[in-house]
């Protein structure tokens, strides 16, 4: 029993929090496998093994109790998020490298669990998209789920032409940005081999899986409603508004929210407690900031999606946001501190 009060403790643990996050990712992962094949599970396994090995090595090097921290599950969450963010058919060494950057650099060199100012998974993703843009734009096509080909893509010679495609976001951006095509959002999205009801074919259901898992996390009180709600409202708001103004140039709210990393970002990336804002109002500002920057990157930037960069940019702002949004204390509510 503890030496001082309170002697009662709720049976909560960091481990149970992290396990719930992993469970919440399962619906999205199931959809991913259904539409795009087993490759993503290979990547998740690869990332998990690498993350645990890197975590153990770093803990040992830092003379921390290895078993104690290795079982907290935080490295697995980082690993899974990286595996789900990278294209599922990137070469194995790219996944390994990304995980190493996340665990070694972004997590442990900053002081380990709880100390990292930046979301480790997003640091790794940003490093990869800058260093290896050629691999980061090759995504599996929906239905091209032949396991042998995928294994070959990951571990062997890459002969991908038959199975890769750009993401639906990338396709839209390229079409709209290429002058002379006279493409409109409507004409691009009319291609039903790439696009489904709202976003990319298959991808929109993966996003739905993340949404369902994310809502469960809110219900379980692992995450609070502020970050996903502000993210979705801000993203949907700016996309919907610009779509109203010029529907030829700007895709609508549904498309944006169910494409790319929006749902994963809203419920699993922006909600990383260590690197996110902590005050109720701060969370709203923080998540809305990520959504708006991501929209700008998608529409005007050089990358098809920008969850990583927008998250990292808002991570920088967290101390300022938290400081200026401190909630009023009991009895001091008339004047904000």
């Amino acid at each position: 029993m503890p030496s001082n009060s309170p002697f009662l403790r709720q049976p909560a643990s960091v481990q149970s929090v992290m396990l719930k996050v992993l469970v919440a990712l399962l619906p999205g992962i199931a959809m991913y496998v259904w539409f795009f094949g087993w490759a993503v599970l290979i990547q998740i396994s690869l990332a998990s093994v690498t993350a645990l090995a890197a975590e153990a090595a770093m803990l040992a090097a830092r003379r921390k109790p290895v078993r104690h921290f290795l079982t907290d599950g935080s490295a697995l969450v980082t690993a899974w998020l990286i595996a789900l963010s990278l294209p599922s058919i990137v070469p194995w060494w790219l996944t390994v490298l990304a995980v190493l950057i996340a665990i070694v650099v972004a997590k442990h060199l900053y002081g380990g669990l709880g100390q990292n100012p930046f979301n480790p998974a997003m640091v790794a993703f940003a490093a990869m998209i800058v260093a290896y843009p050629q691999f980061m734009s090759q995504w599996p096509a929906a239905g091209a789920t032949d396991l042998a080909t995928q294994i070959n893509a990951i571990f062997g010679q890459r002969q991908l032409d038959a199975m890769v495609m750009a993401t639906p976001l990338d396709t839209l951006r390229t079409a709209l940005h290429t002058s002379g095509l006279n493409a409109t959002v409507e004409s691009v999205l009319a291609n039903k081999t790439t696009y489904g009801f709202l976003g990319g074919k298959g991808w929109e259901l993966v996003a739905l899986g993340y949404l369902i898992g994310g809502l469960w996390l809110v219900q379980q009180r692992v995450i609070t409603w502020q970050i996903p709600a502000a993210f979705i409202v801000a993203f949907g708001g700016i996309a919907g508004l610009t779509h109203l103004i010029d529907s030829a140039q700007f895709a609508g709210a549904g498309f944006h929210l169910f494409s790319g990393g929006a749902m994963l970002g809203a419920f699993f990336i922006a909600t990383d407690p260590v690197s996110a804002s902590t005050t109720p109002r701060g969370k709203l500002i923080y998540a809305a900031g990520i959504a708006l920057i991501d929209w700008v990157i998608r529409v005007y930037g050089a990358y098809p999606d920008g969850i990583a960069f927008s998250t990292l940019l808002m991570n920088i702002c967290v101390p300022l946001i938290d400081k200026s949004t401190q909630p009023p204390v009991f009895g001091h509510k008339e004047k904000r501190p």
Partner: protein
Amino acid sequence: MRQLFSFTGGVKPASHKIESNRGVVIVAPLPNVLVVPLRQNAGLPSRPLVQAGDKVLKGQTIAGPGGSISVAIHAPTSGTVRGIETHAIPHPSGLLAPCVVIEADGEDRWIDRKPIDPYALPADELRARLRDAGVVGLGGAAFPSFVKTQHGPTQRIDTLIVNGAECEPFITCDDLLMRTQAGQILEGAAVLAHIAGAQRVVVGIEDNKPEAVAAMTAAAGKRSGLPVEVIAVPTRYPAGGEKQLIRVLTGIEVPFGKLPPDYGVQCFNVATAYATARALLHGEPMISRLVTVTGNVERPGNFEVRIGMPIADLVALAGPKADTDRNLMGGPMMGFALPTLDAPVVKATNCILAASKALFPPPGPEMPCIRCGACARACPMDLQPFEMYWFSRAKILGKAQEYHLFDCIECGCCAYVCPSRIPLVDYYRFAKSEIRAREKEKDAADVARLRYEFRLEREERDKQEKAAKLAAKAAETKARLAEAGDADDKKAMIAAAVARTQEQKAEENPSAE
């Protein structure tokens, strides 16, 4: 129906009330030797009035108030004073303190009890009687009650809140008191209201005590005159915290640094109201109280216990189980582990909780804070506990204070919910004591600095005065010279002065001749 308010945060641990609240109040047998500490109230300790060999009666004053915030202490039974001895008192550090030790004669003979009509006496007289009857807050803080019935010129007390919330898990002594003494509690509350000048009494009871609510409501229905409301408040720890209960019942938030009378309210525990009734309406000073003995014991229950009874004897009545590893005084959220059961029951003892590994499993190993914010959502004071933790741990105490460290009531909700099992409250206690120590040091340094500056000033003033005197003398001499108008005179004067000095030297030191 009164509109209720709510406080944010709070937690709902398993209440564990049912173990101890089913039986009746058991009167603990009279011990042979009673150890009555002189320090029992918040404020200054009491001043002993007896010495070894004195015969005392039950209820006789054995110590008087030791200052303006202090009360009297009484012999819990009749007998002989063995002496004023240093003895363990209930304290987290196992502190030893002077206690009046009384050997009971077994007759348990009362002093001449003099009930009074409180409504016929002025408030100041009643306050003096409360003080002399040893009435202190029995919710745990043991603050002298007579002080709380006073208020400053800018303050007022309209509403007297009677705290029957008893939000800590395991503790049921207030519950049993309300079930069995509802009428007397309200009599006492009415007297306190009369002394404080309050217009109404509001009793707040957590709704997990329906029998107590019913008993108190029935008793309130039988009364006339002063309006008394009995309100069931939602069960959520720490609803019985003074600030939280005031908030729930009135909507008022009393901030750190202010007192309830600044907002027209004052709050007393139900047991304090009962003690007031015993003291003034029956002439019986505060010599016993109800104590819950529960947890890892065979027969948990509530005992009426004399102040001064060894806690070991009390626990023995409930049949402690073999695997008890520690005993707490108070509840599991805010109580403390007793280093020794040798210590006696005091006025602040509301519960003895026998603990075991099974009852309070050791929390898993501590992990780093992941800023999940569970503590902030649980905090009933709307603080950001993880920020306070961060700065307390780093000893950046100024920052910890900026995050309202001193608004923390140490209720333990943050540590209760922390998934990293960080003993957060320990860090706040540490930071608060560090800040207090530094302020004390700074005060001492300030005094020293002021003294030094004063000395410098005085020396400078002396110097200036001397210089001014010399200047005046020189001016005088000059003036005289000018009057004489002769330069030779000046030489003569110097020569005379030199001769005078030599003469003086010779006088002082004749051997130099």
